[in-house]
């Protein structure tokens, strides 16, 4: 199944598939950020593959000078009982990824969480607000340069 999926992706997108690896039967594919919606839509709507469930979507902070932030999509095919992982990376000075809410509606809150925690902006998202932290909070807590105990005074606390 992994071989068939990868063949289909290579045939459809050619050189767009930057990198692929397999670990213990799980296929991971890295694609460029501007191709992510096309790849996701293809994986979901191909009648043979049918990755129709977005099991998870989350962010990564590699803390590297290039391609610092990543977004990971864990997909599941209810038809084939098969999983695949899609990754994409963006630069620190331009952390923009196209939204996949048009493909899977469930991505809405996942992308809000990733935006809240990492500051990755999902272009075209219908309602990109913070989901955990207060609206007026100015930082992104899961970034590696955010201190564990937070920044004093950045969160409102009632006076004693």
């Amino acid at each position, binding site marked *: 199944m992994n071989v068939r999926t990868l063949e289909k992706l290579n045939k459809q997108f050619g050189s767009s598939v930057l990198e692929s690896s397999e670990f213990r039967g799980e296929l991971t594919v890295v694609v460029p950020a501007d191709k992510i919606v096309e790849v996701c839509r293809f994986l979901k709507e191909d009648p043979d593959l049918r990755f129709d469930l977005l099991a998870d979507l989350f962010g990564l902070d590699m803390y590297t000078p290039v391609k610092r932030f990543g977004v990971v999509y864990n997909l599941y095919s209810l038809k084939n009982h098969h999983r695949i992982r899609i990754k994409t990376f963006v630069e620190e000075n331009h952390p923009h990824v196209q939204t996949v809410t048009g493909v899977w509606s469930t991505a809405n809150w996942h992308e809000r969480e990733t935006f809240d925690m990492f500051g990755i902006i999902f272009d075209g998202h219908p309602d990109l607000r913070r989901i*955990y*932290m*207060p609206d007026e909070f100015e930082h992104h*807590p899961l970034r590696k340069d*955010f*201190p*564990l*105990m*937070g*920044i004093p005074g950045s*969160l*409102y*606390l*009632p*006076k*004693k």
Partner: protein
Amino acid sequence: MFRGSIKLGTILGITIRLDYSWFIIFFLITWSLSAHRLPALYPDWTPATYWILGIITSILFFTSVLIHEMAHSLVARRHGIPINNITLFIFGGAAQITQEPKQAKDEFMMAFAGPRFDSSRFGSEVFRFSPRQADVMIVAGTTTYKMARVVRKIYDQMPDPKWVIAMGACTSSGGMYRTYSVVQGIDQFLPVDLYVAGCPPRPDNLLHALMTLQQKIQRRESKGSTLGLVGEFPHHKPKSPIVA
């Protein structure tokens, strides 16, 4: 569990059922009363009187079991746990709850007020479900920055004089949650009178806190209220000390 049972009726929306095994215990109680206990106590009555009195006593006994189970059911329903039915069977009565309590707090409060850790023995029995009727606030559980303003609002709604108990390590100091989103101790935004140790604290620990609080009230002390309002007013001195 109760497959063979008779439906007796419905009280306050709770179905009362009678298991077949109940007739065994009903007969045993009636028989032991009528054939042994009553003849021993009142030797000059007729056998018919013994049996009629035995049956009436047994019915009254099981009515009291039913009332006991109704009390359980109504408390559970008050906390939002629906009750299906009450069944009387060979070992007494059983109320069938449809689910476990949703919050650990409800479970704790049920146990705390129940007979094993009976808080009413120490003079604190009534739980109020509104801060406007409360004297003591027990803050239990991790308090995040986002929740802090809500906790503070509840505290501000309580009438003076008032006291605050921080229950558990997470509430008192942040506990194991050493992270940006958790307030490292609610005394950063509330005047706390007592800290209860433990993660989670044992119920007797909280009982001890309540008794310590009573001593504190007798000494007219409160972290959050002005001293004149605790137990006495400037223009009115009570003749005997107020025992809380």
